[in-house]
C-alpha cells in the first residue's frame, strides 16, 4: 500500500513497500526526460523482453534457428519470457518510456568500497551488455564510477560522493535497504547480524543529500520488507525518511529509538529496554519489536512474546515472510542459522504456522527429514489448508519413493494453492511415470507446459510418455523440442547419454 504526501514545497513523497509501486505515480505526473537519482543496494534494472523466446522453437531448420538466435541475442541464457514488470525490472520500463534522461544509481558506500561487491556491480552491468535485449553501450570505468547508456538513458553508478550537483529538480528514489546494506561477513555471527546497525542513519543521509543540493521533484521511498531486503527491525526508516523529505521535524521518539538500538548492539539490553520506554507514537511498532528482541536476548521469553504480539498489533506487516533473518540465511545456505532464527520466531509466536514451516524447511535442508516431517504435520494441525506444507510433504514422500502418498499430497497442494508452481505438475508427472500411468503422466506434464515449465526435462518426459502410449510422431516432436532446448540451455556434462543423443538414436531408428 502506498501513501502520497504532498510536501510543503509541492514535491510529493511516496512511501511504498515494493519499489516498482512508484512507476504508476511517475506516469501520472507525466514526467519526461528527468534525472533519476536512485539510492539502492540493487539496480532494479533487468531487461524486459519484447519478444517471447519460445518463438525460437518454431524455427523448422537449423539455419532458421541460427538466424533467430543471432537476431535475438541470448534469449535463452537469460531464461524465458520476462515480460511482466516487477520490483526487479521496473526501471527498464521507465527507460523505455523516456521518463528519465539520466540515471544515477547510487550504491551504499560500504558496497562500493568493498572490491568484491564493487566487482559484482561491474559484472552485473557487463552481463546486461553481453545479453542485451535493448540498445546499450559497453560499460566503462571512470575515475569515480561506472558509465553506460541504456535505451539512450545515460547511466552512472557510484557512491553518493560521486554525485554531481544538479541544476534542475530530480526524481529521488530511495530503497531503505540502501541504509541497511549487509555484506556477507555479517552472516558469520547470527547474534551480531541480528543487532547490526545501519551503515548510515536516515537523518545523516538526508543531510548528505541536502549538502549535494538535491531538489526532489518527487521522492519515492520503499521499505522493501516484503521482498526481504530490509530487516523488519528497520522498517521504521521508511517512515523516518518520509518525515524528513516532507520537511517535518523528526520527533524525539526517533532519537530515543536510535539510542536504544545502539545500546542493544553494545550488549546493554537492560539500558536499551529503559530507553525504549520513552518511545511513543509513531514508532510504537518498532519500539515493541525492539523490546521483544531485547527480552528474548535476556532470556525472558514471556515478556518477549508479549511485546512481539504488541508490535504485530501495531504493524501486521512485521509478520510477513521476512519478519526474521531466516530467509536471508537460507538464501546464503546457512541453514543452521536459519533454523536458529525460525526457532526464535516460533518461541515468540508459538501458535503461528510460518515460523514452524520455516523450521521444517531449514531442517529439510539440513537433511533432518524425520524432524521436518513432524513439524510439517504440526503446521497442518494449525492450518489444515497450508498448501506449501502439502507440497513439502509430497516432495519428501517422493524422495522416499512413497509414490502413492506423494501423489496424495501433491493433489492436496493443487486443491489449496491458488497459483501452483509449474514444478508441482512436473513432480506429479514424475510420480505417474513411476506408477507407469503414462496417460496421467502425459496430462500433468502438458499442464506443466501450460504453466510455463518449459525445460528439456518436461519435453523429454513427454516424449517418453507419448512413446509409451504409442504416439511415435508426437514422441519425436517432443524429443525435438527437448533437443532444441538442450542446445539453447546447453549445460550438459559431456559423455552422458544426453537428450539429443537419445533424439539422434530415435531419428536414426526412424530411418
Amino acid at each position, binding site marked *: 500500500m502506498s501513501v502520497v504526501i504532498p510536501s510543503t514545497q509541492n514535491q510529493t513523497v511516496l512511501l511504498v513497500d515494493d519499489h516498482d509501486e512508484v512507476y504508476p505515480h511517475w506516469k501520472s505526473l507525466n514526467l519526461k526526460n528527468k534525472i533519476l537519482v536512485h539510492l539502492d543496494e540493487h539496480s532494479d534494472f533487468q531487461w524486459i523482453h519484447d519478444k517471447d523466446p519460445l518463438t525460437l522453437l518454431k524455427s523448422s531448420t537449423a539455419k532458421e534457428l541460427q538466424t533467430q538466435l543471432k537476431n535475438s541475442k541470448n534469449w535463452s541464457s537469460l531464461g524465458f519470457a520476462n515480460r511482466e514488470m516487477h520490483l526487479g525490472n521496473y526501471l527498464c520500463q521507465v527507460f523505455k518510456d523516456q521518463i528519465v534522461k539520466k540515471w544515477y544509481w547510487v550504491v551504499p558506500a560500504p558496497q562500493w568500497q568493498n572490491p568484491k561487491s564493487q566487482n559484482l556491480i561491474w559484472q552485473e552491468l557487463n552481463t546486461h551488455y553481453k545479453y542485451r535485449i535493448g540498445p546499450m553501450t559497453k560499460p566503462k570505468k571512470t575515475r569515480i564510477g561506472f558509465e553506460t547508456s541504456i535505451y539512450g538513458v545515460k547511466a552512472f553508478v557510484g557512491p553518493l560522493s560521486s554525485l554531481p550537483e544538479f541544476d534542475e529538480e530530480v526524481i529521488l528514489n530511495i530503497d531503505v535497504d540502501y541504509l541497511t546494506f549487509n555484506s556477507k561477513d555479517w552472516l558469520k555471527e547470527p547474534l551480531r547480524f541480528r543487532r547490526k546497525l545501519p551503515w548510515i542513519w536516515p537523518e545523516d543521509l538526508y543531510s548528505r543529500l541536502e549538502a549535494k543540493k538535491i531538489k526532489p521533484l518527487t521522492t519515492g521511498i520503499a521499505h522493501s520488507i516484503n521482498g526481504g531486503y530490509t530487516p523488519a527491525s528497520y522498517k521504521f526508516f521508511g517512515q523516518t525518511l518520509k518525515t524528513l523529505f516532507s520537511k517535518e521535524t523528526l520527533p524525539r521518539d526517533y532519537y530515543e529509538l536510535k539510542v536504544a538500538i545502539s545500546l542493544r548492539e553494545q550488549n546493554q539490553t537492560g539500558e536499551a529496554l529503559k530507553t525504549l520506554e520513552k518511545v511513543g507514537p509513531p514508532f510504537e511498532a518498532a519500539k515493541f519489536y525492539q523490546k521483544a528482541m531485547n527480552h528474548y536476548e535476556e532470556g525472558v521469553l514471556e515478556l518477549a512474546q508479549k511485546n512481539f504480539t504488541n508490535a504485530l498489533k501495531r504493524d501486521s506487516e512485521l509478520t510477513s515472510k521476512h519478519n526474521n533473518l531466516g530467509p536471508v540465511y537460507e538464501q546464503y545456505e546457512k541453514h543452521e542459522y536459519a533454523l536458529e532464527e525460525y526457532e526464535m520466531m516460533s518461541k515468540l509466536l508459538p501458535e503461528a504456522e510460518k515460523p514452524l514451516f520455516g523450521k521444517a524447511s531449514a531442517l529439510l535442508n539440513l537433511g533432518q527429514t524425520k524432524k521436518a516431517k513432524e513439524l510439517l504435520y504440526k503446521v497442518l494441525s494449525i492450518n489444515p489448508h497450508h498448501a506449501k506444507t502439502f507440497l513439502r510433504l509430497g516432495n519428501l514422500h517422493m524422495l522416499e519413493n512413497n509414490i502413492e502418498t506423494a501423489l496424495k499430497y501433491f493433489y492436496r497442494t493443487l486443491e489449496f494453492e491458488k497459483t501452483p508452481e509449474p514444478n508441482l505438475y512436473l513432480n506429479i508427472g514424475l510420480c505417474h511415470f513411476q506408477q507407469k500411468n503414462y496417460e496421467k503422466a502425459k496430462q500433468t506434464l502438458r499442464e506443466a507446459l501450460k504453466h510455463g515449465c518449459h525445460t*528439456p526435462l518436461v519435453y523429454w518426459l513427454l516424449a*517418453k510418455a507419448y512413446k509409451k502410449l504409442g504416439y511415435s510422431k508426437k514422441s519425436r516432436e517432443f524429443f525435438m523440442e527437448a533437443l532444441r532446448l538442450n542446445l539453447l540451455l546447453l549445460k550438459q556434462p559431456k559423455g552422458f547419454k544426453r537428450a539429443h543423443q537419445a533424439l539422434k538414436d530415435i531419428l536414426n531408428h526412424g530411418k
Partner: protein
Amino acid sequence: MSTAAHSKKIFKKNPGFVPRNIAGELVLIPVQKELRKVNSIYTLNEMGASIWELVDGKTSNDQIKESLLNRYEVSAEQLDRDLEELTEQLLEIQALIKV
C-alpha cells in the same frame, strides 16, 4: 587417463540427487534444485546405473571396478577409463561428493 590415485578414491552420493527409472532409463533427478530450473537431463546407461548403485561412501573405485569386471564383459583398461570419466562427470554436476 586412469591414475592410481583415482582408483583409491571413495565417493558418496549427493542426497540431492535421486535416481528414478523413467520408462526403462535411469534418470538422476536433482531434488534440491527446483525441477523447473533443471536444464539438463542426466540419464545413466546400464553400466552408469551399476556404478551409481555401488557408490556408497565406503567402497573405493578399485572395489567398484572389481565388482563390475565380474558382471560385464569389458577389459580392465576400458572399465578404468569409463569409471574415471563417469565419476568426473558426476562430480561436475555434484551428484557425487568426494569422501
